[in-house]
């Protein structure tokens, strides 16, 4: 992405063109979603532990009281939504990678981590060059490779590391979705409008106060 290639220390923010600035904001938003997702998932983790402990040790007295509280339902629904948004971002990235790999690979997806033939590596290299130089022609790609600016075939090591990383992301995102399907927004979508009303009501009461 464009914003990753920016060296923040050398370029003044005010001198940047507007489209680059919006790209940087887009990336900062993703970073913010990432942090919010971590915080939300952490809180969901301790919330789950609280509920299990209370059910086992106290017969669920505190949990029953909490479930009747609007603020608790609203908070857990909001945490679930944040967590799902974060998981959705990771899944989107994984799906984009899967599509790109599928378009160039002759192997099944399950074999990508085991071996990678020479022809597929050459196609992957071409795909990377095209991604880094939008609108480039086949002739220019060949010229760049001949000039030694790009290798003929990228080594498989970094590709497999990236695929493993994305596989991990898919697993954690699936865990977030499964958790939500058991006891979250996906299981009880009716909590969403209630939470929305509660949040709007809280904002209105704060405005009056």
């Amino acid at each position, binding site marked *: *992405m464009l914003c*990753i*290639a*920016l*060296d923040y220390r050398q370029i003044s923010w005010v001198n940047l063109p507007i489209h680059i600035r919006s790209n940087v904001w887009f990336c900062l938003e993703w970073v913010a979603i990432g*942090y919010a997702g*971590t*915080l939300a998932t*952490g*809180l969901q*983790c*301790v*919330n789950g*532990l*609280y509920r299990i*402990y209370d059910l*086992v*040790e*106290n017969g669920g*007295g*505190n949990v029953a*009281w*909490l479930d009747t509280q609007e603020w*608790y339902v609203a908070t857990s629904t909001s945490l679930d939504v944040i967590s799902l948004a974060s998981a959705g971002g990771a899944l989107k990235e994984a799906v984009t990678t899967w599509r790109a790999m599928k378009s160039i690979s002759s192997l099944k997806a399950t074999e990508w981590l085991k071996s990678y033939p020479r022809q597929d590596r050459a196609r992957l290299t071409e795909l990377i060059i095209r991604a880094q130089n939008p609108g480039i022609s086949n002739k220019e790609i060949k010229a760049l490779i001949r000039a030694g600016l790009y290798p003929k075939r990228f080594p498989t090591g*970094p590709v497999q*590391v*990236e695929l*493993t*990383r994305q596989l*991990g992301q898919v697993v954690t995102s699936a865990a977030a979705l499964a958790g939500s399907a058991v006891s979250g927004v996906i299981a009880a979508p009716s909590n969403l409008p209630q939470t929305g009303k509660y949040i709007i009501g809280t904002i209105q009461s704060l405005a009056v106060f």
Partner: protein
Amino acid sequence: MKFLSFLTGRVFQDLLQHGKEIEEAIGQRDTRLLNYSTPELERYFSRPLSELPRQNPYPVAVLLPLFLVAFALNLLPFLSALQGLSPLHHALSFFVPSLTMTGALIVISVLLARGKTSGLLGFRALFIILLITTLVHVLHILLSHNGGLWPLVIASFALLFCRVVMNSSGFVLFTLYCRTQRLARLAREMRLKSR
């Protein structure tokens, strides 16, 4: 020192020691910092982030839930020992410290990812505090025969996993990469200034 090595693991302790040496060199703000770097290394890390290899932060990410589990399962038996707390106070006494703990863990992880040794010190401090708390709780329950041991057994296993992860090659590689990146950036700035 040997006792700390025994508690947190020799590899983690060596990593911390190396970090302290680098921090000392950075703190002096003179050309001695250049002894730890080379122009090739600085050129390598001065490339755009998109050209640098992406690192695997999972060992650090795994520590977050493990520490949270150990923390929550220490706090819950403590709170249940306090009599007369209303459900609201009970929930607040649990969720407010947990929120603080989650925030602290995120800050520590960010410091580690920026190559600062304070991140490692933070993890070590949390690990030792939680280990001591768990041991005290276990002793208290064994002596008083009051309450279940299962939360503390799970907390102990979580801490054991934390120790394994903190001494794993993935964690060490991630920490060293981030540290080297920071060192190379500072050394490059210093080299450019001295010209």
